[in-house]
C-alpha cells in the first residue's frame, strides 16, 4: 500500500489523463449527489441520526435496521454536519402519500432536504475516490504502466453502477468495498493484525466481504508456504485482529442486549425468502421467489468460494499472479444469481484490476454489468429519485413527479406490469454479464493449466 505508506497521498505522481478521469468521476458524483436521491434509504439515515440526537442508541427505537458500523459512522458524520451547519431535516408531504401504497413498497412520502442528501453522500464520494486512487497505485506498481493504471482507475471511477450506488442511491457499499481492499493490501504488507481488524469492520459494514474469507486465509497460508509455522502464526494474528475488533464493535450491544438486532438486516431477508408468496401481490411474489432463490443459491456459493480458496492454496503458480485472479473469481461467484445492483459494487474493483492488468476483453462484461445494474436500479427507484428536488426547489413540480411515478410503476403492457418486465430483462442482462466473466475466467484458467502442464 505504497500510496499511503508515508501518510501522504501523492497525487502529483498520477499520470495526467488519470487526473482528468479522476476529476470527471468526482465532478459527476458532486453534480448528481444533490439532484437525485433514493429517498427511501436516505430517509432512514435521517431517522437514525434523529434517534442518535435524541439520546437513543442505535436499536432502542426502530429506524436503524443495519449492522452497527454504519450507525457508528452516522454518529460521527452527523456531528460533523452539525458543526458545518447542515441540519437533519425531513418533511412528510401529503401530496406524496399515495406512493407509499404502490405495489413496490420502497417509496417514501417523507423526504430529506437537498443539502442533507448532498452532505450525507460526501463520505461515500470520498470512499469512492480512495478506491480509485488505490486501484491506480496498485496497477502502476504492478505493471509500471500509467496507461493500465489509468484504465483500472477509470473502470472504477466512471462505472455507472458505482456512481449510481454512491452519488444517487446514497448506499454505503463503497465503505465495505474500501475496507475489503485495505484488508487485502494490509495482508500483502504483512500487517496481519490490522488486516484482521479491517476485515472485521468490512464484514460488519455489509456482509458480502465475508465471502472472501477463504481466499484471504488461503493467501496468508500460501504466502509463507515453505514456513508453515510462520504461516500459521500469521493466520492466528489475523484471526486475533478479527476477534479483537469484533469484540470492540459489539461491546455496546452485548451490554444492552441488542446483539440480535444487529443481524436484523440478514434475518429479515431470510424471513422474506421463507414466506410463501401471496399471489394477490406482485411485490410479494417477486421478493419471495427472488429471496428464496438467493437462499437456495447461498450454500452453493459458499461451497464454491471455499473451493476456490482451496484451489489457490493448492496452486503451484506464483501467488502474485494467482491471487488477483482468484479474488475476481470469488467476487463474481458471489453474484451468480441474482444480480443485486447496490451490492455489485464490490465486484467492480476486482474486475477493473483484472481488465487493466491482464485482459482488456473483460471490458465487455464490465460495460454490460455496469450499465444494466445502473438501469436496474433506475427502473426500481423510478421517478422517486427526483422527489426531494421537486419538494425543496422550484425546478420540478412535486405533484407532477408523484403522478409520473405512479404512472411508471403501475403501467402495464398486455396485462403485465412494465416495471416488472424491465427489471426482469435487466436482471437477465446483468446475469449474462456476470456469467460472461465467469466463463472467460474459466477458459483463461483452463488454458493456464494446460500451459503449465506442457511446461
Amino acid at each position: 500500500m505504497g500510496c499511503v505508506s508515508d501518510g501522504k497521498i501523492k497525487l502529483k505522481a498520477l499520470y495526467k489523463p488519470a487526473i482528468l478521469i479522476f476529476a470527471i468521476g468526482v465532478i459527476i458524483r458532486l453534480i448528481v449527489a444533490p439532484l437525485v436521491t433514493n429517498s427511501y434509504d436516505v430517509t432512514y439515515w435521517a431517522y437514525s441520526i434523529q434517534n442518535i440526537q435524541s439520546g437513543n442508541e442505535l436499536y432502542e427505537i426502530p429506524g436503524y435496521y443495519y449492522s452497527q458500523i454504519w450507525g457508528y459512522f452516522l454518529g460521527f458524520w452527523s456531528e460533523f454536519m452539525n458543526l458545518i451547519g447542515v441540519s437533519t431535516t425531513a418533511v412528510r408531504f401529503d401530496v406524496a402519500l399515495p406512493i407509499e401504497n404502490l405495489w413496490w413498497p420502497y417509496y417514501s412520502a417523507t423526504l430529506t432536504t437537498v443539502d442533507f442528501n448532498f452532505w450525507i453522500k460526501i463520505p461515500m464520494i470520498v470512499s469512492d475516490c480512495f478506491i480509485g486512487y488505490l486501484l491506480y497505485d496498485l496497477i502502476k506498481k504492478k505493471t509500471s504502466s500509467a496507461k493500465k493504471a489509468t484504465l483500472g482507475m477509470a473502470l472504477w471511477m466512471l462505472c455507472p453502477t458505482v456512481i449510481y450506488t454512491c452519488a444517487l442511491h446514497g448506499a454505503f457499499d463503497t465503505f465495505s468495498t474500501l475496507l475489503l481492499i485495505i484488508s487485502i493490501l494490509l495482508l500483502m504488507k504483512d500487517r496481519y493484525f490490522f488486516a484482521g481488524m479491517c476485515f472485521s469492520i468490512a464484514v460488519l459494514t455489509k456482509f458480502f466481504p465475508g465471502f472472501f474469507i477463504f481466499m484471504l486465509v488461503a493467501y496468508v497460508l500460501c504466502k509463507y508456504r515453505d514456513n508453515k509455522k510462520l504461516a500459521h502464526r500469521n493466520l492466528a494474528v489475523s484471526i486475533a485482529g478479527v476477534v479483537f475488533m469484533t469484540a470492540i464493535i459489539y461491546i455496546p450491544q452485548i451490554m444492552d442486549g441488542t446483539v440480535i438486532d444487529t443481524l436484523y438486516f440478514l434475518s429479515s431477508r431470510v424471513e422474506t425468502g421463507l414466506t410463501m408468496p401471496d399471489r394477490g401481490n406482485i411485490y410479494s411474489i417477486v421478493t419471495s421467489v427472488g429471496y428464496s432463490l438467493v437462499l437456495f443459491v447461498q450454500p452453493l456459493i459458499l461451497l464454491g468460494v471455499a473451493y476456490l480458496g482451496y484451489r489457490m492454496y493448492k496452486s503451484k503458480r506464483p501467488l502474485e499472479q494467482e491471487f488477483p485472479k482468484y479474488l475476481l473469481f470469488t467476487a463474481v461467484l458471489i453474484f451468480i444469481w441474482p444480480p443485486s445492483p447496490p451490492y455489485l459494487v464490490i465486484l467492480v474493483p476486482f474486475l477493473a484490476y483484472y481488465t487493466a492488468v491482464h485482459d482488456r476483453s473483460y471490458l465487455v462484461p464490465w460495460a454490460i454489468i455496469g450499465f444494466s445494474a445502473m438501469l436496474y436500479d433506475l427502473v426500481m427507484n423510478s421517478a422517486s429519485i427526483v422527489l426531494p428536488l421537486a419538494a425543496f426547489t422550484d425546478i420540478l413540480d412535486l405533484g407532477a413527479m408523484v403522478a409520473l411515478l405512479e404512472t411508471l410503476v403501475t403501467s402495464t403492457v398486455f396485462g403485465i406490469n412494465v416495471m416488472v418486465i424491465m427489471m426482469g430483462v435487466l436482471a437477465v442482462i446483468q446475469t449474462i454479464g456476470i456469467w460472461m466473466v465467469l466463463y472467460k475466467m474459466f477458459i483463461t484458467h483452463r488454458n493456464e493449466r494446460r500451459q503449465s502442464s506442457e511446461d
Partner: protein
Amino acid sequence: MAIVVVGQGMVYWANPYSHGISVNVSGDSVDFDIRSTYDTEYTVLVLDNGDFTMLDKLYIYYDEGYGNDPRITYSSQKDYCDNIVAELTKRGFTNYAYVSAEDLAGVVSSAGAGTGMLFTSGAFPETVYDGTDSCGLMKWLASGGSMYWNGGEVGRYISATGGLTEVSGYQTLFFGKEGCLNETDSEPGYERSKEAVSSVLRLTANNIGNGLVLGLDDTLYLGYNDGVHCSMSLMKKGEGQIAIMGGSFDKEMRMSLSQLIASKISYSTTMVASEDDYTKNNTAKCTIQVLLPYTHTYSYLGGFLLTYGRAI
C-alpha cells in the same frame, strides 16, 4: 477504524447532543427559551383543554395470560409498547406503568380523571370489561379516564385466560350506534384533518383501517381521512374520552400516538397559538402573546424528525 470507534463513542458513551425548553409566563405573554447543541426546527403550541383533566399517568396493558385479538401477536404488541415508551420518554412523558389484567381491575376501581390506559391487545380483559355499560372499564371512562386504543375494533373482544369472546353490539355500547368503525384492517386516508392542532403536532399516521367514522358529536378528528373514516379520533365518553387509532403498529402511528399522549390533548382541546421556526447558533427565544385562556404548552424540536418534546 478511528472513525468507527469515535462514532461508537458518540452514539453509546458520550452523546454530544443535549436540548432543553423552558417556559416562563408573565402577564399575557408566554416566553419559550429553547436550547440545543444542534441547530434544528422548533415548534411551540399553547393549548386549551377546557375542563378536561390533563393526563398525568398512563397505564400500558400487557398480559400474556389473557388472549389477544388473533391478528396481534404478543411479541409485536410488546415491541410496539416498548417503542411507544421510548417515544414518550423522548417527549418527557415518563409517568407510565405496564399493567396486567389483574392490575387493571385495581386501576378502574379508582376515578379516571388524569389517568390513561393504552390498549394494543385488540381485546379488553374480562377483569374490566363484560360488554355492558356497567363494567369497570365503562365506569372508569365515565369518571374521566382516557383510553387509547390501537389495533383492531374497540370493544369487539373480551379476553380471558381461556381465549376470546366476541361481543355483539359493541359499537352501540361505545358509540351509540352500529357501523361506526371501518371494517377494513388497513386502508390509507389522504385527506389531512382540518384541525390545526393535527398539522402543528405533525400527526402523520394515515392508516384508517378500523378507524372511527366521521361526523360523531364531541369528537376531535385528527390525522387523515378518506371522507368516511379517520385515522386518529378523540371522542368524549362520559366525563372521559376514547382515542381510536387506525391501522396496525407502524412507524407513523407509533410517533403520532406518542405525540398525542405526550402533548396531553383531549377531544375538547383548542389550539390557542403556535409558532414554528429554526434555532440559530443552537438557541432560540420565542414569545407568544396569549389573550385567551389556556391550560398548558407543548414544545418540541426536530419537526418531523422529533428529537425532544415537553408538555409544560
